């Protein structure tokens, strides 16, 4: 789960990381009031969960409360890469002398959390990694030991930070690590971390991605989820325990298992179609879950055919078959359905589906070809519901 900048920075502040004074506004007049209270020039920042907000016009400087109102009016409601801006953060403008990067990520190959720092802050760190990897310094953190002070100071020194800033850098680095661990994050970034004219360091921007699998122990963080930033179908999928990602094609896919679901999308493409979605109904899927999955798939108006591909291991084919029937009763549709059920209890599953007159297939290749044909209206009408 991604957090907004203002949410991430509030968490950072709880762990002793200095952040600019600022507040969130949902209207231009609120932005004006905040600017008035701050009594300094402010930066108006769109709060949407996409990168590159500055380049897209979502971040603007305002010298006066009047200007703050005007700039907030321009940003609120604007569309940033498909997301409507509903909130802006009004932060006190700072006196930037240097921009650094500081971040924590999960290094899969090392199976450790690593901290990365760079003197090239304020730009996309992935771009830095690609163009000048030597500018990024890394330390590997042992889980039982945490981030040690020598590691933080080592990073500060390695990126050429003047010595007078070491203590403050260390405090921020250790605060960030603490926030990362306590919140079960999979990414935490301060970009840029700025050195100001008065010699202090400040987290100007913040980014945090939390581990969805750990949210069960963070009900307070779960409450920060912004449903406006999630497609309604993705929200319904999440609530029903399904993995769903909307794509642009015309063939709805319902598959058990993430790898097979991806392979199903790939083979649809291979045979000239385009997948409308990724959907994994997971292990041990029951009828209600399958029904919810079908509702979600059919809520996409682009879907011209649905392909069910079930290989039963933990999932039992008879349960899935019953789920498909229950779903079809709940969601009457004329969209053609191609089903392929193999594995645990496949005979029972096929017997249940035989009564429903669905298009059936034995192999994945056959199922994909039939789904592509069905989406084009090339399959005989009698098998189409």
């Amino acid at each position, binding site marked *: 789960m991604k957090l907004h900048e203002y949410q991430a920075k509030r968490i950072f502040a709880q762990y002793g990381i200095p952040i600019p004074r600022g507040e969130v506004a949902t209207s231009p007049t609120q932005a004006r009031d905040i600017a008035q209270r701050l009594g300094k020039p402010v930066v108006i920042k769109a709060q949407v969960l996409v990168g590159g907000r500055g380049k897209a016009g979502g971040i603007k400087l305002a010298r006066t409360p009047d200007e703050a109102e005007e700039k907030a009016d321009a940003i609120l409601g604007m569309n940033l890469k498909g997301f409507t801006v509903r909130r802006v953060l009004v932060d006190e403008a700072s006196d930037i002398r240097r921009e650094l990067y500081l971040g924590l990520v*999960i290094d*899969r*190959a090392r*199976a*450790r*959390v690593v901290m990365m720092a760079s003197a090239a802050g304020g730009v996309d760190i*992935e771009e830095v*990694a*690609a163009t000048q990897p030597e500018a990024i310094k890394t330390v590997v953190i*042992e*889980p*039982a030991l945490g981030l040690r002070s020598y590691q933080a100071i080592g990073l500060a020194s390695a990126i050429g930070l003047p010595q007078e800033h070491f203590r403050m850098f260390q405090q921020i680095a250790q605060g960030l690590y603490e926030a990362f*661990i306590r919140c*079960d994050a*999979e990414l935490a970034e301060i970009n840029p971390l700025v050195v100001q004219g008065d010699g202090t360091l400040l987290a100007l921007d913040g980014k945090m991605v939390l*581990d*969805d*699998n*750990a949210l*069960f*122990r963070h009900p307070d963080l779960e409450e920060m989820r912004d449903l406006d930033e999630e497609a309604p179908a993705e929200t319904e999928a999440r609530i029903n325990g399904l*993995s769903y*990602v909307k*794509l642009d094609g015309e063939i709805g896919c319902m*598959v*058990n*298992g*993430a*790898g*097979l*679901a*991806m*392979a199903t*999308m*790939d*083979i*649809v*493409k*291979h045979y000239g179609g*385009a*997948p409308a979605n*990724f959907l*994994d109904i*997971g*292990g*041990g899927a029951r009828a209600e879950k399958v029904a919810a999955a079908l509702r979600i798939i059919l809520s996409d108006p682009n879907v011209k055919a649905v392909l069910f591909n079930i*290989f*039963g*291991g*933990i999932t039992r084919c008879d349960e899935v078959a019953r789920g498909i029937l229950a779903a079809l009763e709940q969601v009457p549709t004329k969209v053609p359905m191609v089903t392929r059920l*193999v*594995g*645990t209890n496949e005979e029972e599953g096929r017997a249940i589906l035989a009564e429903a007159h669905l298009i059936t297939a034995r*192999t*994945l*290749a056959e199922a994909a070809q039939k789904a592509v044909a069905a989406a084009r209206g090339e399959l005989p009408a009698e098998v189409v519901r």
Partner: protein
Amino acid sequence: MSILVDKNTRLVVQGLTGREGMFHAAQMIEYGTTIVAGVTPGKGGQEVLGVPIFNTVAEARAATGCNASIIYVPARFAPDAILEAADAGLELIVCITEGIPVLDMIAVRAHLERLPTRLIGPNCPGVITPGEAKVGIMPGRIHKPGPVGLVSRSGTLTYEAVAALSEMGIGQSTVVGIGGDPIIGSRFVDILALFQQDPATKAIVLIGEIGGNDEELAAVYIREHVTKPVVAFIAGQTAPPGKRMGHAGAIISGGKGTAADKIKALEAVGVPVAHHPGEIAELVAQRL
């Protein structure tokens, strides 16, 4: 011969008294796996499916001589279950559980690095040596004994490949699902090393997917250490960047971990990559 599990595997099931645990334990017993114990704290002394239940893995080991564990406990308890089995001195732990927090797995991995125990998973379908032992949730009957070692990050996609191999009359030495999480106990290179040493394995199938760079590391390992023919498949060519595709580990982030990169790395070391799962068995048949 085979790798990881065989007729001598004496299995303890952690979470045997739960719904999934019981269902799959029954299927494993039916397949012929020797299950000697179950562990559920607070239920010691009971018997389920004719198997004695113990409160701890250490007690189960002392009483039954179990040497491997399979874990079906919920995600919030699974890290402890893994550590318990490792500290009890078991050689092999297979963790089926999906949804373990990644920081928990980092701590578990760090501890296991100091112990001789091998962990498979989590978030995996398990390990099967056809005709000998099934330690997992895969449908046993699609497998048959034979010369192909298969290692995969996926569950059902593996069944797909196995079924196609078996239908062509090509059996498997051992099939290993290493799991779809970002932090797992054993990676492609670990299992490739075992298959390379196993005299019963004559060819290897590697099934990868988007996310991370384990396939790229596997390609380097294959070039330097694997003399047996390897065939691969990579899922997720149509996956969009930045979106998690079901598996916690299946995400293209910062332009890294794409299917195209992995396919390129494998093809560069002479490993043919199937265009779709149905092609895997054909590519293997040409190389046996």
